[in-house]
């Protein structure tokens, strides 16, 4: 019974439903519905243009169905505080104490040509997006500034990479996927819109983060016109060439404030740390520095549990949305079937009783179509509310990254500690050996001096690493606090929004059905 037949029915009836909504029957009441703005129902507006010009074959059907009163049927939300999707973003963007705001929007995708260094004749093309920022943050040049830049997706990747290096331990929102497959498979317009929307969401979530919004990286990205002045992401292979020469500088932290163990890591260190982590895990040797913060470990476990249940709830929410959609569609099809019946019973009247029946059927059809529309709107709102679940799943991925920043920083400290231990051990051995030779062994003495120098350098690196580790721990802690608070507020408002939405639409539907019950009350057996 399911399958193709149903799909065809749905497609057909969906079109008929659209035309019922938008077509203007010849009676005088049509003017009210004709002027209804389409933006109230985004689900309808996309197909409206395709129908407005066509001669509508179903126009005769509409003579049997009163045009929808949009004022009656449609509203976006009951709860004024959860008006649409934008408001929560804005409110988290603005700090009530100092009323800062950082508002970003993305638009106008344009095709551009890759100029130099192109091996392919004609060059490759890519798309850029116009990123407009409105802010009064001081970092951006004072109150009420507004500016735009053009950026391509690669620039966003760069921004994201630089942020994750500079802000280790923070819950940094994840950037949108590269979606290589989708960019080939999807229609261009659709893909560009999808990408535009996801980029916008990403930048806005960066702007909503109390620490990240003030970062230099973000400022450069949003403000500096022309080429993005951030170091591009380098792959590991090219780093090998530079790696060995750059090691001392990295250890001394000359590149910047923090030792960029992750970003600028060279292969040597990489292998050392891998060996270290292996010996920690497999060697049975107690590591020198252990994650001791029991409080942290407990919290981590609880968050993992929460994430799992959240993921499950998100799945169930998806099937709830699907079920709501299905019932709405079937109700609509039922309504259409009754519209056809009504038309049929009115066309060739052979018997008196057909008129009464036709009137009844028309009422049923009207009620069913109205209910179907209500289900559709209910669902659109439900999706908006339950989308929060999806957002949080993304946040948890960011949390995971922050936690692994912590463990890799710890690993660095451990590695350096064991390096130090090794160096000390070697010095001891050499000193023990050369003490047996009277006057000392010149080469051995030299060796010892070198080792002592290594120890000094390593100790400095270890101090840096320990500082970095502590910083990351602190970042984790403050972020966890922020997460707890925001999580509480976000979920409470999500639940409330969901419940109010359900209640409101259920009431509207009750009205529709009560009206039909009244219209058919003449048939009631026991005065019910």
């Amino acid at each position, binding site marked *: 019974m399911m399958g193709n037949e149903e799909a065809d029915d749905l497609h057909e009836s969906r079109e008929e439903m659209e035309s019922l909504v938008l077509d203007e029957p010849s009676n005088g009441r049509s003017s009210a519905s004709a002027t209804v703005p389409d933006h109230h129902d985004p689900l309808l507006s996309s197909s409206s243009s395709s129908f407005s010009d066509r001669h509508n074959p179903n126009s005769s059907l509409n003579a049997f169905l009163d045009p929808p009163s949009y004022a009656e049927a449609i509203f976006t939300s009951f709860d004024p505080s959860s008006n649409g999707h934008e408001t929560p973003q804005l409110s988290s963007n603005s700090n009530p104490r100092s009323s800062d705001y950082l508002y970003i929007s993305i638009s106008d995708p344009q095709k551009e040509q890759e100029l130099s260094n192109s091996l392919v004749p004609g060059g490759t093309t890519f798309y850029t997006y116009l990123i407009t920022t409105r802010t009064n943050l001081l970092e951006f040049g004072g109150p009420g500034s507004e500016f735009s830049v053009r950026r391509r997706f690669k620039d966003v990747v760069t921004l994201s990479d630089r942020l994750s290096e500079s802000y280790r331990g923070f819950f940094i929102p994840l950037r949108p996927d590269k979606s290589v497959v989708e960019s080939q498979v999807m229609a261009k317009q659709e893909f560009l819109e999808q990408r535009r929307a996801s980029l916008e969401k990403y930048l806005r979530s960066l702007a909503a983060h109390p620490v990240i919004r003030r970062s230099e990286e973000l400022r450069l990205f949003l403000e500096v016109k022309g080429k993005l002045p951030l170091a591009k992401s380098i792959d590991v292979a090219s780093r090998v060439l530079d790696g060995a020469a750059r090691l001392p500088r990295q250890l001394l932290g000359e590149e910047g404030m923090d030792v960029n163990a992750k970003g600028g890591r060279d292969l040597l260190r990489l292998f050392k740390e891998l060996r270290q982590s292996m010996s920690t895990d497999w060697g049975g040797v107690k590591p020198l520095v252990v994650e001791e913060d029991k409080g942290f470990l407990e919290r981590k476990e*609880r968050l993992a549990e*929460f994430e799992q*249940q*959240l993921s*499950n*709830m998100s799945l*169930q*929410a998806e*099937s*709830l949305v*699907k*079920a*709501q959609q*299905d*019932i709405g569609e*079937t*109700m609509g*099809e*039922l309504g259409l*079937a*009754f519209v*056809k*019946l009504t038309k*049929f019973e009115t066309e*060739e009247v*052979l*018997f*008196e*009783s*057909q008129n*009464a*029946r036709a009137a*009844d*059927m028309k009422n049923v059809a009207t*009620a069913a179509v109205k*209910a179907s529309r209500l289900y559709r709107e209910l669902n659109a709102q439900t999706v908006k509310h339950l989308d929060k679940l999806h957002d949080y799943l993304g946040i948890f991925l960011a949390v995971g990254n922050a936690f692994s920043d912590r463990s890799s920083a710890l690993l660095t400290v451990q590695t350096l500690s064991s390096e130090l231990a090794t160096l000390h051990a070697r010095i001891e051995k050499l000193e023990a050996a050369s003490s047996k030779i009277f006057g000392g062994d010149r080469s051995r003495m030299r060796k010892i001096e070198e080792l002592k120098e290594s120890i000094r350098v390593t100790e400095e690196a270890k101090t840096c690493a320990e500082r970095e580790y502590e910083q990351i721990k602190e970042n984790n802690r403050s972020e966890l606090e922020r997460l707890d608070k925001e*999580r509480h507020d976000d*979920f*409470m408002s999500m*639940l*409330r929004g969901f*419940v109010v939405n*359900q*209640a*409101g639409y*259920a*009431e509207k*539907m*009750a009205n529709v*059905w*009560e009206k*039909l*019950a009244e219209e*058919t*009350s*003449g*048939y*009631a*057996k026991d005065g*019910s």
Partner: protein
Amino acid sequence: MIATQRSVSGSSQSPRSPSSQPYLSVSVTDPVKLGNGVQAYISYRVITKTNLPEYQGPEKIVIRRYSDFVWLRDRLFEKYKGIFIPPLPEKSAVEKFRFSAEFIEMRRQALDIFVNRIASHHELQQSEDLRTFLQADEETMERLRSQETGIFKKKPADLMQIFKDVQSKVSDVVLGKEKPVEESNPEYEKLKHYIFELENHLAEAQKHAYRLVKRHRELGQSLSDFGKAVKLLGACEGNSLGKAFSELGTKSETLSVKLQKEAHQLLMNFEEPLKDYVRAVQSIKATIAERANAFRRQCELAETTKLKEINLNKLTLMRSDKVGEAEIEYQELKAESEEATRMFEMIVRLMNEEIVRFQEQKTLDMGIAFHEFAKGQARLANGIANAWRSLIPKLEACSSSS
């Protein structure tokens, strides 16, 4: 539930005026599964309450099974040509559901309606077969049942042929077949067309009604799953947020139950009446086929009689000694022809009455079904609204106490 028939014939619970007004009320109850394995079947108690003299006493209870009802329907169809015999629920297509509680209840309700419609039809209620059905002991019933006759026992191929004959005039002409003998009555043509089209439209409405029942169940199931998942998430939290989650989850599960209940109501009070309407229209199609048969028979006999008359005249002129024989044959044939004409005319007359009655009845039946539909949906929607609304102050309490 279609109770108008009951109220006409007197409900099984409360017969109107016990002594003065004649009443005949029947109820089909207590389905019981009997037999084992492949042979298993459902039996029903059929309780008859009446004060009609033709019946053996005020109350009688018999045990009947589905094939007994089929027997009754077939007998009535044979004997009361022209009358729309009330439809029977179908044999179950899918073996799996043959004994599901829901299927049994749907069938019981449909059988109850079937018998009551017969009992309240002014012609059919006088049928001897009805009396037999309502009163005979099980052995007699079994014996009668095994003698199978009637149009519905014909092979599907034959049935299709009969319907095809009624529908396809044009194709036969095109194919060069002999033009079938058809009534050339424009009114009747319109009626036939109406009936055939009506079946299509009704079947579609019924199909969507059935799907709507399914959708209610699916929504109920997903609300239940959603509720459970929300509660599990709440258990992770433990603070006021956790409490909010758990309240929501519980509410969701409550609503799931409401949806399942409403799905059942929708099935019994809206989808089944629509299905019943479809079956009734199919029953009319069978009567249309009968009328076509009767018409054909009448024409054939009229034709044959005419030929016999011509032959007789010829023989009379020739002063043949076969005249006597031919005379007798002619008279017999003439009587048959007149009988066939009478039969046909009776069918036409009955059909005209029946169709009016049918239309009025259907308007009533559908009106009730629509009313129940509206009430059920309103009840569900209000229940949902109230449930969610009652949750809001609890959520407020949770957020303020954070």
